């Protein structure tokens, strides 16, 4: 204790002097990279007051140094984050803008450079395009069918796993295994399970006396089947996110709730859920974006791998419709307009989410 104080006092007195002496003895150019410690700057200023008036050259040198330093502090962080934005610009922003430009034209994949101005034609056409509305509706209904049970189940599972469990690591790893499985592999297995003539699910239904279901060709049945694939893949992932958030809830909240006589269920609804609000909102937003972009599952659910989404387009999502227009029908302009419509819808959802989040914060 005493020792530290002494060194502290000594150090405080010696530091400026030391720094000044070093600087005078061996003047070196300021390094442009790396952030110098703020202490060095302070030392410089301290010495300026004590030393005799410096020469004009020295003055300039110091001014340059301090300018460099300020520039460094100000701009270096941008340099550090630049790589991400360069990559994003090349592979995110540029395609986004180019897609926007293409969406204003008639372009065919047979001659992608040969663009014919169409104004907003591709967008106005979407308004009356029943296949677009069908795909939007399917995206929405599959999204709801997949997201709602998935998040509720994840919440329940996380709650159970939040208790002291034997082999909790094992359970956590198992939870995440479906997430680590490739979409293609998982979907192909589910397609076999949901087969009409030779599927295991229809066989099991038959064993309990239920007529076989034509999973492919019904609207609800096919969307339900696809939703189960999504649920299977993503529930574990969301469970772990919820679990992490639950473990950050202070134990004393539960203790005081228990002292007040709250049951387990009441603890869950009155302590856990309110503490998890921001996390729940996060998972809702992420799942919504995922649902909007749903592509691989419905594509591979169709036995021929066709982007039409069934004979009646009964499970064609927006992603599949975009793909069909662009890469099967070869209409790049129309496909770009669908892509931008999807982007705008996501923006709209983001705004709604932001408003909800603000409300939630205010109500707390």
């Amino acid at each position: 204790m005493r020792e530290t104080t002494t060194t502290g006092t000594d150090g405080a007195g010696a530091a400026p002097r030391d720094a000044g002496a070093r600087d005078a003895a061996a003047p070196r150019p300021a390094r442009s990279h790396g952030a110098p410690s703020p202490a060095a700057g302070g030392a410089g200023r301290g010495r300026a007051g004590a030393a005799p008036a410096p020469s004009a050259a020295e003055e300039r040198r110091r001014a340059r140094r301090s300018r460099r330093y300020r520039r460094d502090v100000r701009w270096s962080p941008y340099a550090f984050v630049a790589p991400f934005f360069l990559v994003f610009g090349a592979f995110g922003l540029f395609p986004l803008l180019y897609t926007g430009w293409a969406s204003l034209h008639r372009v065919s994949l047979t001659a992608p450079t040969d663009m014919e101005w169409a104004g907003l034609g591709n967008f106005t056409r979407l308004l009356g395009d029943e296949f677009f509305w069908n795909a939007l509706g399917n995206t929405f209904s599959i999204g709801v069918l997949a997201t709602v049970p998935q998040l509720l189940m994840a919440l329940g599972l996380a709650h159970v796993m939040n208790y002291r469990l034997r082999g909790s690591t094992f359970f956590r790893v198992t939870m995440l295994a479906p997430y680590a499985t490739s979409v293609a592999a998982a979907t192909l297995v589910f397609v076999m399970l949901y087969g009409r003539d030779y599927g295991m699910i229809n066989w099991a239904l038959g064993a309990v006396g239920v007529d076989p279901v034509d999973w492919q060709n019904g609207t609800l049945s096919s969307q339900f089947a696809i939703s189960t694939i999504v649920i299977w893949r993503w529930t574990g992932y969301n469970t772990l996110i919820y679990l992490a958030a639950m473990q950050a809830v202070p134990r004393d909240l539960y203790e005081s709730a228990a002292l007040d006589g709250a049951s387990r269920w009441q603890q869950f609804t009155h302590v856990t859920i309110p503490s998890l609000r921001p996390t729940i909102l996060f998972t809702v937003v992420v799942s919504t974006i995922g649902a909007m972009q749903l592509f691989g599952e419905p594509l591979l659910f169709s036995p021929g791998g066709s982007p039409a989404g069934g004979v009646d387009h009964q499970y064609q999502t927006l992603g599949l419709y975009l793909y069909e227009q662009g890469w099967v029908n070869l209409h790049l302009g129309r496909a770009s307009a669908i892509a931008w419509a999807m982007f705008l819808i996501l923006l709209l959802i983001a705004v709604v989410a932001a408003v909800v989040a603000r409300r939630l914060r205010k109500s707390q």
Partner: protein
Amino acid sequence: MTRMARRTRRSRHRMAAAVAATLGAALVAGCADDGGGGAAERAGSDGRTTLTVGLFGTFGFQEAGLYEEYERLNPGIAIEQTVVERNENYYPQLLTRLASDSGLADVQAVEVGNIAEVTATQADKFVDLGERPDVDPGDWFDWKWQQGTTADGKTIALGTDIGPMAICYRKDHFEAAGLPTDRAEVSRLWAGDWRKYLDTGKRFMADGPDDVAWVDSAGGLYSAAIASAESRYYDADGDIVYQDNPDVRAAWDIATTAAEEGMTARQEQFTPPWDKAMNNGTFATLSCPAWMLGYIQDKGGEQSEGLWDVADAPRPGNWGGSFLGVPESAPHKEEAAKFVAWLTAPEQQATLFEERGSFPSSPSSYDTPTVADATHDYFGEAPIGEIFARAAEGIPTQHIGPKDQIIAENIGRSGVRQVEQKGLSPDEAWDEAVKAVENALGR
């Protein structure tokens, strides 16, 4: 532990040395390239010119030993192929590469469903193969030659195989239904008319085994029927006329009647359940182009051996077949064109038929013993050379337009299959099909 660490460090040194050496070599190679350039740029270390071949699906050139043979005949040439499994993925990739003039192989395959679009929109990107001295237009069926030729007479792709169609049928099911099983008698049951094929189907459904359908799928039946018609979706002037074409309506009626009467096994072709149905023998007949026999043998397996046979289709038609072209920006245009001319010549087509079952598009090969005497043991020693040659010579000359494939797909899926799978009436389904086609065609 220490030893391991040291070894790691040493191997890291070695790795660094290897990387440096590679980079150095690349630099040297880069300099050498500047000097050499031209045809030598892709020459392998043994000094041979490597021709690349871009294919989809299974052509079987390599398996039939044709690359090896060409390499033996032309010592300076090596051949390498890259294969994309599905044409739906291959074709868009080909189009983008043609548009950017990069990434193209020396030889690119084109499927018959896309050939009209390629000749109509990409002709300037391909080398003219029609004027070559080693290519004789008389070696091909005229319709096959014309499909690879533009309106102003530039032949951008040469035909490989074609898909003349027959009917594959199960003798055991025919016998159980009291129908003849001999292939000549079976052919006579429906000769000349798809409606007779349906009538036979009605008899089969009444007298045959309960759990066996007459035909695998309404979609397959529609494809077969439209392939044997005089015309399809375009008229001779190149206008889209599918809505008013009586030939389309006739094929539509055949397929939707079969669907409505429950004569189909409600399968979708080339899906695992279809394979399984073939294995279990749940349908009695199937329109089979020559290239499908191998598939049926694969999926039918041992338990169906000797049960299948091949009869003439009610009317002959063509389903499938491909073309090979040489892009203008190919690194070795001349060598590639020479190779394509050789690969599509009658002798090589006959070899491919013998080895792989792809039927030649060259009628002059039909008299060679390789084709004329060919039989298929899985199909009860059926004389497939004779049957398919007869079918090939009867294939109608149809005008195929750029969007033929898309129109066919949408009529098949939104139309025929909606009758079969969802029980729509043919009229409702036709309206749905027209909506889908029009949406797919509208730019």
